[in-house]
């Protein structure tokens, strides 16, 4: 094993060596620099390997051969090894990235870079306070040098401000060290730690000064104005190092210092950390410059790690795992993003649209964002899961809330940025693609995925990258070069195969969901055959969603459930974002979904009480006062997905703006995830009371209101897909209502809605999508009279609306019949009123849908339209067949579920004997109904055909128009604002109060950020005062008060 001191020695030595070289030998100098950094990285890597897998023990190195305090002491343990590797690798990659700049600036720049890397390694390795100070000074000097590498004019000013701040910090640190030395007589950290009691008696100020100096080095909010200018104006490669390497090193220094301070100082670290995390994230929300955003995000992430450091008293063994996970994710992603920013010309966030032409770079971008946000399967996800669970177990609820809140804001602006990149108008600037720079970026991507794999392996919950569905989804990344039809076939086979594989293990409930998700998903995918080309990005996203869904229904423990939940959320976000105008809607979708997911996370965390391997069945054993809160958190989380009223505003846009074959996926299938979650929740937890209020009763009201308001809003839509989207809110309201009734038939009805809603909503979205494709518009009033041109679409919509409205003989009636029987035994009657009102309103929007599109007047420009593409029609016709079959023999699917539900609610089940289905109250014979109605209809039709066999077929203007004639189809088609009288009477109910509420909330956050921004005036002296003020305030809060 090479001695760790050689890392420092190599850096230092090579830097001196470079001074000896001739100025002209640039290539040689550059080669030497790279070699030195590679050597340093190799040494660090070998230590990592030895410590992690080789079973080597932590080594202390004493330079003078004696024990401290008389010698300088370095330590190489696993964390040190990993961090030095990180620092050196980052520097090596930076050196590669900076090739051109290095050549221009010559050997001095290379020497500075080496010194920088060396100094950071020194900070990490040293166990000596004075050395720490020295290395910090070295860092500061080299930082100053490196800042000037930038082409940006502002870099000079930024460097100057940095020096001012650094000097303040250095002075504080030095004074602190002197005091401490005075108090303890040693400079060794471990020595001091053992004497910390003594130090703290007399010298808490001494420790404070050291501590605050190093914390200030982390650029905590709000004393960080100077740092942001660097992040913004320095060369991106350097910003990457500053954020990734220097930040990590400084954090490790804090970690070391906290050894001295002991548990007493942990809350201070926590407080500074969380304030930084939330404050910086808030700031980032108002930014539109990429590097500044990244700077704020760096500060936030470092703040988060600092918060985690502050929790080391409760984290125990998983301390390194959690802190390391977040830190590593931050370092890799931030370095990667800064490097990426070097490839992009413009500095606006929207300028990153330049990446769009390069799928691989987009993939890199997505990887970095996911790393940063902590999405599965990246380290941050595992770390956050463990962190939140530990916090919940230790009753640090406030902190938990704040962390989740900050994380949500962070996800908000990062996903907003991603939306810009994918959807905003592409800039004319090209990506500056020098191969070595791109290679560096890909290096970071590989590092990210490696870290994901490693963290997964280390996780006690199992590696997500070992789960087959997820791998299948990720596998599509490798198949992106194939044409659509091949990928589609593979996807369909995959879905069906997974269903067949899992078939024996599903219980009836899971079977229904699995059939809807997997078989249903395969059916919808049939329609994707109509797309030509390669459709890059579609299949990984779609399959990620399906993988999440498939894993969700088979999840046994809370971790796999949550991981599946996040996967399907992210996958569906990418899917929704593909729509033409879906940028804002996808954003609100992901924010609501992540908000919901965080509630679920918090709920699970509260429920588990520290048990990491928490089975979902154990939800039932959560005790009284806690259980209601757990229930509420989980229920709201799931209801976010079913778009219950109040958290529904993401749905209409997201579903309406999605692509033709995506809308049915996200509506017909994705919404069921929320229902499944609710099923799981209610099954395990049953009824819960909070302050005497029964929560299922509240859900009953929410369901009823969703049904009413969803339906009401649907009738006032002009956009066909929006109409269907609002209708989904209403339908999900019904299902929620059924569940919340907490009786046998209510659940059966909810399940019936799962099946029915999947079938008819997918069908309607497909046919409306096909029509929109042909007519080029989604505004219904622009269509009309399409029945003769698109008869198959018409049949699909006709069958669909009969089924939705619940008119016999189609399957929707079964749902209504079960509903009526269910409410007979329900405990609460008042919400029924709302449901009763909602029911007939469905007719209004359904009729409008079919009338304004297919009936009425055909428009000039649509006279030559053709039927929708075959691949869109095919699944619709299959759905029609399904609906008819399901209408005649509903028992096929339902009787098994019915008997399965007996274990939860033994009473009031249905009797499926013979042809007639009977309940405790009534009876219903689907086959008889179908036959009777069919016979009557056929007889009457035959009679009409007989008496009216010679009817003259006329055209659209051949009608009685008060002795006049119509002028234009546009003015004759009664379609716009179809229910004007209804709007007059009940329109006031559709005031967008909820939308306004959420808008006000986001506005508030934004204006808060704007307000705080004034604080950062760009003046170096002011920043120095901020810094001092920060120090004083922290001191007063901690010590003085």
């Amino acid at each position, binding site marked *: 094993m090479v001695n760790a001191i050689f890392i420092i020695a190599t850096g230092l030595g090579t830097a001196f060596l470079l001074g000896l070289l001739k100025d002209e030998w640039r290539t040689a100098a550059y080669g030497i620099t790279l070699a030195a950094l590679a050597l340093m990285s190799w040494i660090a890597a070998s230590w990592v390997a030895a410590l992690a897998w080789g079973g080597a023990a932590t080594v202390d190195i004493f330079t003078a051969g004696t024990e401290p305090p008389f010698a300088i002491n370095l330590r190489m343990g696993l964390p040190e090894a990993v961090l030095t590797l990180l620092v050196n690798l980052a520097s090596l990659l930076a050196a590669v990235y900076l090739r051109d700049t290095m050549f221009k600036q010559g050997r001095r720049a290379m020497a500075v870079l080496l010194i920088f890397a060396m100094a950071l390694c020194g900070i990490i390795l040293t166990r000596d306070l004075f050395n720490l100070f020295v290395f910090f000074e070295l860092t500061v000097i080299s930082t100053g040098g490196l800042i000037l590498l930038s082409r940006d004019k502002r870099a000079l000013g930024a460097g100057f401000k940095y020096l001012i701040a650094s000097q303040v910090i250095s002075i504080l640190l030095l004074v602190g060290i002197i005091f401490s030395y005075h108090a303890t007589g040693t400079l060794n950290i471990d020595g001091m730690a053992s004497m910390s009691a003594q130090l703290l008696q007399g010298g808490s100020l001494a420790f404070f000064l050291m501590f605050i100096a190093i914390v200030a080095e982390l650029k905590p909010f709000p004393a960080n104005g100077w740092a942001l200018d660097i992040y913004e104006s320095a060369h991106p490669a350097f910003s990457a190092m500053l954020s990734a390497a220097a930040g990590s090193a400084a954090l490790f220094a804090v970690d070391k210092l906290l050894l001295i301070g002991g548990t007493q100082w942990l809350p201070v670290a926590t407080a500074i950390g969380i304030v930084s995390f939330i404050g910086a994230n808030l700031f980032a929300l108002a930014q539109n410059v990429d590097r500044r955003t990244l700077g704020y995000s760096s500060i936030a992430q470092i703040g988060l790690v600092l918060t985690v450091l502050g929790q080391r008293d409760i984290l125990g063994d998983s301390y390194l795992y959690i802190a390391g996970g977040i830190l590593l994710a931050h370092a890799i992603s931030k370095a990667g993003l800064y490097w990426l920013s070097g490839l992009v010309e413009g500095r606006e966030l929207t300028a990153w649209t330049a990446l769009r032409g390069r799928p691989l770079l987009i993939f890199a971008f997505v990887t970095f964002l996911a790393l940063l946000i902590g999405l599965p399967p990246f380290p941050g996800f595992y770390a956050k899961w463990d962190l939140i669970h530990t916090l919940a177990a230790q009753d640090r609820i406030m902190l938990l809330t704040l962390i989740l809140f900050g994380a949500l804001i962070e996800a908000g602006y990062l996903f907003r940025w991603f939306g810009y990149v994918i959807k905003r108008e592409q800039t004319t600037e090209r990506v500056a693609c020098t191969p070595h720079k791109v290679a560096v970026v890909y290096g970071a991507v590989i590092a990210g995925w490696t870290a994901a794999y490693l963290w997964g392996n280390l996780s006690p919950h199992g590696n997500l990258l070992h789960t087959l569905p997820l791998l299948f989804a990720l596998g599509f990344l490798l198949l992106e070069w194939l044409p659509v039809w091949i990928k589609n076939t593979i996807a369909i086979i995959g879905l069906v195969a997974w269903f067949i594989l899992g078939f024996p293990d599903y219980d009836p409930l899971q079977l229904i969901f699995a059939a809807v998700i997997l078989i249903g998903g395969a059916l919808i995918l049939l329609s994707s055959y109509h797309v030509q080309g390669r459709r890059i990005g579609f299949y990984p996203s779609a399959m990620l969603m399906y993988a999440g869904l498939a894993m969700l229904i088979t999840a046994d423990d809370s971790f796999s459930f949550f991981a599946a939940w996040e996967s399907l959320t992210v996958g569906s976000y990418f899917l929704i974002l593909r729509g033409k105008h879906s940028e804002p809607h996808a954003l609100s979708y992901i924010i609501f979904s992540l908000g919901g997911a965080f509630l679920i996370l918090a709920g699970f965390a509260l429920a588990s009480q520290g048990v990491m391997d928490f089975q979902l069945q154990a939800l039932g054993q959560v005790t009284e006062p806690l259980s209601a809160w757990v229930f509420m958190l989980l229920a709201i989380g799931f209801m976010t997905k079913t778009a219950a009223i109040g958290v529904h505003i993401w749905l209409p846009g997201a579903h309406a703006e999605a692509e033709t074959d995506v809308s049915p996926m996200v509506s017909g299938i994705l919404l069921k995830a929320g229902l499944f979650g609710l099923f799981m929740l209610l099954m395990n937890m049953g009824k819960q009371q909070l302050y005497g209020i029964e929560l299922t009763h509240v859900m009953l009201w929410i369901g009823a209101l969703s049904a009413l308001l969803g339906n009401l809003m649907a009738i006032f839509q002009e956009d066909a897909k929006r109409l269907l989207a609002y209708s989904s809110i209403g339908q999900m309201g019904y299902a929620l209502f059924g569940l919340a009734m907490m009786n046998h038939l209510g659940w059966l009805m909810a399940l019936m809605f799962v099946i029915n809603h999947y079938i008819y909503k997918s069908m309607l979205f497909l046919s409306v999508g096909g029509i929109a494709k*042909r*007519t*080029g*518009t989604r505004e219904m009033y622009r269509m009309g009279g399409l029945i003769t041109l698109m008869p198959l679409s018409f049949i699909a919509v006709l069958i669909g609306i009969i089924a939705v409205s619940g008119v016999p003989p189609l399957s929707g009636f079964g749902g209504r019949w079960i509903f009526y029987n269910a409410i007979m035994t329900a405990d609460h009657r008042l919400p029924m009123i709302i449901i009763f009102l909602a029911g007939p309103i469905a007719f209004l929007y359904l009729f409008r849908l079919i009338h304004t599109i297919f009936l009425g007047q055909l428009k*000039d*420009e*649509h*006279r*030559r*339209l053709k039927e929708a593409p075959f691949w869109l029609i095919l699944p619709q016709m299959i759905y029609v067949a399904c609906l008819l079959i399901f209408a005649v023999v509903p028992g096929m699917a339902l009787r098994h579920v019915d008997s399965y539900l007996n274990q939860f609610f033994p009473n009031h089940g249905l009797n499926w004997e013979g042809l007639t289905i009977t309940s405790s109250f009534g009876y219903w014979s689907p086959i008889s109904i179908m036959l009777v109605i069919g016979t009557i209809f056929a007889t009457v039709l035959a009679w009409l055909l007989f008496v009216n066999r*010679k009817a*003259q*077929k*006329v*055209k*659209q*203007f*051949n009608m*009685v128009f008060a*002795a*006049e*004639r*119509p*002028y*234009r*189809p546009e003015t004759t088609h009664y379609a716009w604002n179809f229910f004007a009288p209804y709007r007059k009477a009940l329109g006031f109910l559709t005031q967008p109060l909820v939308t306004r509420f959420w808008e006000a909330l986001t506005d508030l956050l934004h204006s808060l950020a704007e307000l705080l921004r004034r604080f950062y005036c760009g003046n170096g002296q002011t920043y120095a005062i901020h810094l001092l003020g920060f120090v004083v305030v922290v001191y007063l809060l901690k010590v003085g008060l």
Partner: protein
Amino acid sequence: MKEELKKRVIKGPDGFEFEVDPLQDYYCEAPPTVQPAAYQKIVEKIFNWARSESIWILGFGTGCGAIEMRPLMTPRFDAYRFGVQWRPTPRQANLFIISGYLSTKTLKRAIRSYEQMQNPKYVIGLGSCTINGGMYWDSYNTIKRLDDYLPVDLYIAGCMPRPEALLAGFEEMKKIIRAGKAEGGNLYAENFDWYKANQKKVIHDWDMPEHSW
């Protein structure tokens, strides 16, 4: 020809351009056909009886005589007891009462309404104006004899005839219908060209299809 009836070139959503000819594309071009009576004489007799006892009048007052129809709905005359009632749309009406003078402009609308009625259909000319122009005999914009333009089954003379005369007219009409002689619809179909020629002679801006279905 009105602007909206002229041919126009339209661009479809897929960018394909094509011509729309409103008169062909928006209106049915088929000429009216003669509708034979029921095959069985006796059936047709029953039908004719039913037709005579259920006279549905088109509620279209073409001239001043319309004012004389309103009292028929009142308690004083109560035409409903004779099986007579008014329908707001020609599709459902059997009897078209041309109530008085008919300007060429109204004639256009009257023709359209008449053609939109279903066979068998009947026309009553009410008042002298429909017979020979009446007091508008020298007017520049009213037609002088209705039967040149529409097949008339019955005239009720007078200027204006009183509601009683109308009731008497209905009774006459019933007799005609029962006798199977009220075949105006078929007459119109048989002599379609002749009627059209007459109509077009006075309607100078003919801007509708040959037959308004």
